[in-house]
């Protein structure tokens, strides 16, 4: 039985001015996969996600989400996607209630439905008391929780998460990890982008490494380990991206400091 392709990318390329950021990405993602989407800074991770979400323009190639070509239909497919950005862009002069009901309404949820759902979700995260307070008075962890709720309120089939655990304490991290694995078991697709290799190692069932605008590795953690004969994802990452000077650099740093 062929597993339904939730995201299909063919020959995706893009330039920012003169710089070639994406040099031909080819990717197929299926239901129930948790993809650990990793890469060095500037490798093209956030750009790929933004392209799929329709936030960025000027790319070449083909992108299909849930079978729909996003160049042809630019709106409907977004109803099934949820997104947590790395940089928390949020209208923080609003209260959580106002913001979440607003986001809900953009997905077509009725005010009362969104309101009630959002409040209950805030309760699960332990921040229900702040529901009517302005987001600019929140701590980083609280803002992150609001972003997480905003991304899942409408029950999306695909989730794009960019550093979703940033600012969360260890207990909340456990909750979120459990949420993600439950969602995946139910057949949702999750794109998880992060720099924290241990978490990626443990959460994902498939790892895609982007380096210099191209996919440098694609497979399960086990497969990657066999291929590069390194122990942890961190080491595999270093090896594939050709980075071996960390010891020398660290030595240099400390010696300058101690001058």
């Amino acid at each position: 039985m062929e597993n339904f392709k939730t995201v299909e990318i063919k020959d995706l390329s893009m330039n920012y001015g003169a710089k070639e950021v994406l040099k031909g990405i080819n990717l197929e993602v299926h239901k129930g996969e948790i993809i650990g989407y990793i890469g060095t800074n500037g490798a093209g991770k956030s750009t790929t996600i933004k392209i799929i979400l329709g936030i960025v323009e000027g790319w070449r190639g083909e992108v299909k989400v849930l079978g729909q070509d996003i160049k042809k239909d630019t709106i409907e497919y977004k109803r099934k996607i949820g997104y947590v950005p790395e940089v928390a862009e949020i209208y923080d002069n609003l209260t959580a209630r106002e913001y979440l009901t607003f986001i809900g309404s953009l997905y077509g949820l009725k005010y009362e439905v969104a309101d009630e759902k959002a409040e209950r979700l805030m309760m699960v995260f332990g921040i229900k008391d702040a529901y009517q307070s302005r987001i600019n008075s929140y701590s980083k962890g609280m803002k992150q929780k609001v972003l997480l709720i905003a991304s899942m309120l409408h029950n999306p089939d695909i989730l794009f998460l960019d550093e979703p655990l940033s600012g969360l304490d260890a207990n909340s991290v456990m909750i979120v990890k459990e949420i993600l694995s439950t969602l995946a078991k139910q057949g949702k697709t999750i794109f998880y982008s992060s720099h924290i290799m241990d978490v990626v190692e443990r959460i994902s069932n498939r790892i895609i490494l982007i380096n210099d605008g191209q996919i440098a590795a694609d497979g399960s953690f086990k497969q990657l380990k066999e291929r590069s004969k390194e122990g942890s994802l961190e080491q595999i990452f270093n090896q594939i991206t050709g980075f071996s000077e960390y010891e020398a650099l660290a030595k240099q740093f400390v010696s300058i400091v101690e001058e």
Partner: protein
Amino acid sequence: MDFKLLKILDKCKPLFQRMDIDYEVMRRILYIKLLLDGRRVPTVFGNNKKGKDADDKNMFLRSLWIYLLMGLILLPFVMMKNNYLFQMSIVFGIVMFLVMTSLISDFSSVLLDIRDRSIIGSRPVGRKTLSMAKSIHILYYMLALTAALVGPALVASLFFQGPVFFLLFIVSLILVNIFCIVLTTLVYFLVLRFFDGEKLKDIINYIQIILSLVVMVGYQLIGRMFRIVDLKIDFKPGWWQYLIPPIWFSAPFQMLKKSEINNYFIIFSAMTVIIPLVSLIIYIRLMPLFEKNLQKLGNNNGNRVKRKRKSEGLLVKLLCHNKEEKIFYSFSMKMMKNERSFKLKVYPTIGFSLIFPFLFLFQSLQGSGIKELTQGKTYLFIYFCGIMLPTLLMMTRYSESYKASWIYKALPIGNLKSVYQGTIKAFIIRIFLPVYAIEAAVFGVLYGTRIIPDLFAVLLNLLIFSILCFLLLDKKLPFSIAFNTTQQTNSGMGIALIFLLVVQVGLHFIATLFAYGVFIYLCISVIILIILWETAFAVSHS
């Protein structure tokens, strides 16, 4: 809570749906944007903001009152009947200035909001729907602003000039608004094209400062304007007028009321209609290009070379004697130079203190002629440029990045004396001295070289005054408090300080009654200054 605008738009729902726009979504987006407007502090409020979410009342609506008051200035010009080209040019000039500066000051954060792309753009909302919401939002703001500003003048025109004038006025105002939006966007576009986002933010900051200053000074002038209603002006058409938009807009009025129909006026009137409409079309075409350049605001590629001026290094060495003082002098200087919110709060106040003494001078001018004045002692008015010193000094305790003040506690700073000394010195050099230099120069020219000793005496006394202000006000570490915190202004203290200033003026005046009195006063001041400087800053901090 619902907005009247939305209720009106509801009636046009079918129209929007025919344009292929998701009305419900558009309505929701507009609702949120209007809500956010109400919580943003308008520039015209200046320093009168009280607490973060003290009132949930609409800030924007309240700022409209200020525009209404400003609009009173237009009344005399609308009521005059001598030369419409002149008076309506002034009217449109003022309107364009205020509308554009307000647009740039308060609405930049809206026009240039790149958060929309990320927050709304990643959700199932069509481009058209979002653009329409944004356009309606901006139009609403401009209409509200213009209506508040020109309301009184419009009503006056109906009574004084007749219904045709009134209608012409309304149509012209709509065209002026269109023109302003396009002009403003064009300015943004050009700046973003050739520079980066930081430069644009700096420019916006300066415009905010100018607007605040104009509002502050404008109040003073409103009363005086009514005296010119009877002025007779002769206005001859010239080539340079083709370049001044307010003049184009006023031509139809001249033609209407004075029946002076000539080629110039016809061309001007044509320009009034054609130019805004053409620019509107260009604007709509260029929007996508503009949005692309907007992304630049998010990229901080600052290739900005900061040139360190040698003179600054010298100054630091001269003024500060110990290391810690030097450090905090440089630090405060840089903070005052770079922080936009600080500049926004401080520069208008500085501008105001520059002008304040001249206001007093004008009052005196009403009584006697200039010759008489320059022989007298009214140069003492220069003391009043110090009236804002307590306020300005208090400003140094605020900062956007106030949270960074933990470094004061974490770093090994022995005696806070150097912190305060360094900061005050920077404050004096950067803020007080330039103002005083300008004042002194002007007064010197007006009153002649005989007042030079007095000018020095004033300088010393104002420095003494600043230190006394520091002593008497609450001691807080520089740049350590958030801007919106309620200032516990001890009004008793404020009055006491002004009283002090008056006492200084009085003493100086007495000194001028004796021969060489001023020089003696000067010497005493020097001594007091030195004593104060050494002792005032030995502050123990818990």
